[in-house]
């Protein structure tokens, strides 16, 4: 059963949120969804790029009140 996790990278600059996401992916199962919260716009641009190259599925990026919510699905 696929799970959904939230990784709170708010307040951390690049590449903090990306590193937090990667740690979360390592401890997840294929198909699990992870939503990264970030206040750093650089990370909001960087994470989708990394996810596509890394063999995972990029789902969406939504900005709410200065916080980017970047959702990805573990692909391998």
């Amino acid at each position, binding site marked *: 059963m696929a799970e959904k996790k939230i990784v709170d990278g708010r*307040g951390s*600059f690049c590449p903090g949120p990306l590193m937090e996401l990667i*740690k979360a992916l390592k401890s997840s199962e294929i198909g699990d969804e992870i939503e990264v919260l970030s206040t750093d716009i650089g990370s909001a641009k960087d994470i989708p790029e990394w996810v596509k190259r890394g063999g995972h599925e990029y789902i969406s990026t939504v900005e709410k009140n200065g916080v980017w919510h970047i959702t990805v699905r573990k692909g391998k």
Partner: protein
Amino acid sequence: MSADKTCVVIVSGSLERIQMAAMVASVAAVSGHEVLVFLAMNALSPFIKGSNTLVPAEGEMGELMRELTGEKKVPDFRMLFEQGVELGDMKIYPCAMAMGVLGVEQQQLESYVGESSGLAKFLNEARGGQVWTF
């Protein structure tokens, strides 16, 4: 699949340069690159255990980053190197000459720093890779 190879040579002991080197090296490592880091000249001392306060800022950015690091804002460069080694294929080589000049032994260096290397060995391993110098 043959991996991309990224080689990062750090000569400077300034916070800005070491931070930028840590960012390039760690992101390359978690992006599937083979990463070789060479700690030379003034870049070795910050990796001696317990040397937390010795890294000087070069300018305004370094001063600001230092203020922010305490409140978990800018990721600490030591943590980035450690994560690169743990999550990716990163090897960190302390320069044998710098260790000799400073009189530093392997066990005095941070645990994620690998065994010392001379230039000939590093150049040989770096062959064919991108080289970044800080």
